[in-house]
């Protein structure tokens, strides 16, 4: 079976700055792929390119067998932006029901999705009155409400309490088990261990593309944070040579 996403030699410039410097990678189907890297490394830009909202300089991005941004993908890809993009002057339920309507889903389906992200009790509250973590989950509900085949989540667990964070990860794995492909970004390395596969980027370059176990084996350390540090140092030494 094809991969959910195939990125080939992707170069993106923003203004004069080269944000992605020729990245090639894949996101497999039916798995949770982690996109890790420090703030400013190009995670969001790569995700925007996959969703098809980023102007790219060169390279190709193939999503579910179609070029990224193709009209038919708008029903098949769900995107959670880093800043919660929901209407602050609507309730959680009204937001979810609106985005559900855009994806031809009914009210009951929208209400279930709100409950799934743990916001059943806050469903009738205005998003503007919610905490940051709740707001981000409201935004997540709107990204998942269309049951997309591919889900792109830009830092979905920032600001969530540990219990909720564990719940969300369990939910991501349940979705993957049901066949959904997920790409989840994070700058918190302890989340890397929760992923089936890892993409590590730094300064717009891919430093690692492997399973967590393979990364540990290749670097000879158990702690993924330490493993990434070694990978980054190794790639820097290669560059300076």
């Amino acid at each position, binding site marked *: 079976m094809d991969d959910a996403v195939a990125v080939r030699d992707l170069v993106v410039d*923003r*203004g004069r700055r080269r944000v992605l410097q020729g990245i090639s990678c894949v996101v497999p189907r039916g798995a949770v792929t982690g996109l890790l890297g420090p703030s400013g490394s190009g995670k969001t830009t790569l995700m925007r390119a996959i*969703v*098809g*909202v*980023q*102007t790219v300089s060169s390279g190709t991005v193939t999503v579910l067998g179609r070029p990224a*941004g193709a009209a038919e993908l*708008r*029903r098949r*890809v769900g*995107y959670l*932006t880093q*800043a*919660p*993009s*929901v*209407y*602050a*002057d*609507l309730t959680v339920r*009204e937001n979810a029901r*609106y*985005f559900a*309507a*855009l*994806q*031809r889903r009914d009210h009951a389906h929208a209400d279930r999705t709100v409950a799934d992200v743990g916001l059943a009790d806050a469903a009738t509250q*205005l998003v503007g009155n919610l905490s940051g973590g709740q707001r981000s989950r409201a935004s997540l509900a*709107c990204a998942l409400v*269309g049951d997309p085949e591919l889900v792109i989540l830009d830092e979905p667990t920032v600001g969530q309490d540990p219990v909720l964070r564990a719940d969300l990860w369990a939910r991501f794995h349940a979705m993957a088990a049901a066949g959904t492909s997920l790409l989840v970004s994070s700058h918190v390395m302890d989340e890397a261990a929760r992923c089936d596969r890892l993409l590590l980027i730094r300064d717009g370059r891919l430093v690692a593309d492997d399973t967590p176990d393979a990364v540990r084996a290749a670097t000879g350390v158990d702690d993924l944070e330490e493993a990434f540090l070694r990978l980054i140092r190794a790639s820097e030494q290669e560059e300076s040579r």
Partner: protein
Amino acid sequence: MNPRILAATTGRILRQLRHDRRTVALLVVVPTVLLTLVYYMYVDQPAPPGRPGTFDRVALIMLGFFPFIIMFLVTSIAMLRERTTGTLERLLTTPLAKIDLLFGYGIAFGLAGVLQSTIASLVAYQVFGLDTAGSMWLVVMIAGVNAVLAVALGLFCSAFARTEFQAVQFMPVVVAPQLLLCGLFVPRDQMAGWLQGVSDVLPLTYAVEALQEVGAHAEPTGTMWRDLAIVAGAAVAALVLAAATLRRRSG
């Protein structure tokens, strides 16, 4: 265009408005307060022989301007928020077509404009005895088309503002010249030639002429319908321009 998505979008915009009770209250109350002010300004002024009284002349045109000014501002800010909070980018990754969003705004705030002008007109006719030869409902209809034009211009102008401060500054830019040159302050045939030329290309000039036709004639006139068509055409042109400012891909 998809009727279900358009209906959902229109409903969503109206729901946002409904949650903002203070804005709704201002939409309803402010025109009434200003009409009261104008009424008492002119109540003791004798009408020039053979011409409508000053209140009748000014209030009629105010009824057309309220929804234009207010809906322009409301739309500019609402659309700017869509652009800055990321909801626009998100919407453009969904099956929503640009035209669904633009028409959604046109219908939602057009309806709000009709509601506003209906209330303002009822007050003007029933409380202050506004006297026009034609029907009040023609006035409401013209005001409604004005509101749609304002929404279209607001959608377009929001593309050129990065902040809400900038967005509100477009209001005088768009509204003031049209108000000054529409024929309310100086009759158009008494203006310098070049001013008349500018006035000829401003859509509100035609809205005002249509309103004056209602003021002077019991039945809708051909001129009124032609003017209304021009205003509607300008609204469509502004919507097309607004569509061109919505990009699915950006840098």
